[in-house]
């Protein structure tokens, strides 16, 4: 799961106008750019950054949901959640592989994540505080991710677009599964319903923030749109998400925590209240409630696992040496 709040991409590039025009022609003709094709440095850099952030988001995203695997309230839910978190890890793996086609290694990207240099989706810096959050994350967070990722299936860079096709199928399953968890709670005991409402209250605004700043404040959109890495603006996707989600909440009998939310007949969509951009920037800059804990957990897994990775390499080396000696 991920949003398109690509943070800090730099699309500047120094190729000749002829080179750039030739490249743009291919993009405009909807040709897929493949790893060995020539491409502007800015295009390569933007994609490494975006795919890397996306991969990191999947990996860090395993933590908030992983937090409830051992407490899932039924065996069916436990198995489904475990499978879901495993899917997120799988997405991370395809995405790191897609980024590697651009000339960066998984180890380099991991080091950047652990040092705090690389970003990941800010949504994962909020805590999961009840079982209902497992439903709400599927419903809203994966729902928001799908809004962004469906257009990425048509991204101009071939490996990313192809990875997204499989990722989207799985995310769509996660989204329905999350909605089903919330529905079960909404139709359950008064305590379960309250748990679902509290969860919606906490995740609604961070989910809207997943689409990134308003278009007027989004610095990197234009170049990404021209290169067809990105197909819709932040505000367009946010609007689609709200319009799709409000009726789903109504069906559940839950209240979206926005007193200003109302249908606008003229635009054929919902108007919403102001988003707290101070909170958004605070969380993006690393002051989210769980930011330190998330990186600490990833760093601990990486450091504690170092001896395992070293042993695997040492063993492979011994095998290779034995094979050569036997020949």
């Amino acid at each position, binding site marked *: 799961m991920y949003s398109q709040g690509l943070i800090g991409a730099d699309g500047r590039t120094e190729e000749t106008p002829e080179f750039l025009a030739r490249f743009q022609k291919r993009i405009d003709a909807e040709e897929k750019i493949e790893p060995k094709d020539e491409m502007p440095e800015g295009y390569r850099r933007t994609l490494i950054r975006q795919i890397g952030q996306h991969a990191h988001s999947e990996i860090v995203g*395993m933590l908030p949901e992983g937090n409830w695997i051992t407490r899932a309230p039924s065996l069916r839910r436990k198995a489904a959640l*475990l499978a879901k978190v495993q899917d997120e890890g799988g997405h991370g793996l395809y995405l790191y592989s897609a980024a590697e086609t651009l000339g960066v290694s998984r180890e380099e990207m991991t080091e950047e994540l652990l040092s705090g240099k690389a970003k990941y989706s800010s949504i994962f810096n909020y805590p999961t505080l009840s079982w209902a959050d497992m439903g709400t994350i599927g419903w809203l967070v994966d729902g928001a991710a799908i809004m962004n990722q469906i257009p990425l299936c048509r991204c101009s860079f071939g490996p990313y677009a192809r990875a997204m096709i499989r990722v989207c199928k799985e995310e769509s399953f996660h989204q329905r599964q999350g909605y089903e968890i919330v529905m079960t709670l909404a139709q359950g005991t008064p305590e379960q319903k309250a748990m679902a409402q509290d969860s919606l209250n906490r995740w609604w605004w961070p989910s809207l923030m997943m689409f990134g700043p308003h278009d007027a404040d989004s610095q990197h959109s234009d170049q990404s749109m021209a290169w067809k890495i990105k197909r819709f603006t932040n505000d367009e996707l946010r609007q689609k998400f709200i319009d799709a989600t409000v009726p789903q909440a109504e069906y559940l009998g839950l209240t979206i925590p926005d007193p200003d939310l109302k249908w606008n007949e003229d635009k054929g969509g919902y108007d919403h209240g102001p988003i707290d951009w101070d909170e958004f920037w605070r969380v993006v800059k690393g002051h989210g409630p769980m930011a330190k804990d998330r990186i600490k957990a990833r760093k601990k897994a990486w450091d504690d696992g170092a001896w395992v990775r070293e042993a695997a390499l040492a063993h492979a080396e011994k095998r290779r040496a034995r094979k050569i000696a036997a020949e």
Partner: protein
Amino acid sequence: MAVWEALLELADDHLVLGHRISEWCGHAPMLEEDLAMPNMGLDLIGTARTLYDHAGKLEGKGRSEDDLAYLRDEREYRNCLLVERPNEDFAHTMLRQFYFAAFMRPYWLAALNSTDETVRGVAGKAEKEMAYHIRHAGEWVIRLGDGTEESAARMRDAVEALHIYVDELFDSSDAARDAEAAGVLPVRADLRATWERTVSEVFAEALLEQPKAAYAQRGGRQGIHNETLGHLLAEMQVVHRAHPGARW
């Protein structure tokens, strides 16, 4: 003793080990293992679910898989001690998985001839899964045993810590003996030679030695566990128990 109680023992083994290995999810030494360990956990939890469901039906008191998993305390849990041992480090975790799978693979192969149709069904699926667990965990036992000095030392520590829980795998409780006599489940003691062969082959490559247990720890089948199981169950059952009668 009734057959359903023997199925409950088996189900508890699978759920507790599945829960333990799922504790790694998101914290593994490498991304590939963040995918492999949940896979093994899912196999085990899947098997546990079918066994609980079947045990509940045979008991005939209307207890569901979740009633059996979430509403029994540690004295009522009947898993063997091996599966409840804490993860400790990756060496302990892989050795625990390997020991268990090396037992369960021949167990399920023998259970393909069970007189119980559901057990035969479980066996058909589970023997393939256990073959994979033996391969995956066994390869790690070899890599770590014959890897670096540190990994070899950790692997030896794991062997030292876990071998005292091996003998219990081959014990049959009164309930299991009744199920074995009825042809529902295989005779545990008969699987020792196969287990020894699987383990000694891997240990030879891993440069590990199988110690002889000075004293084997037992008690799980009577609900006499280590202190760790209570904490595992407290965590696993907390949400379910906080909302009696709720649907999830």
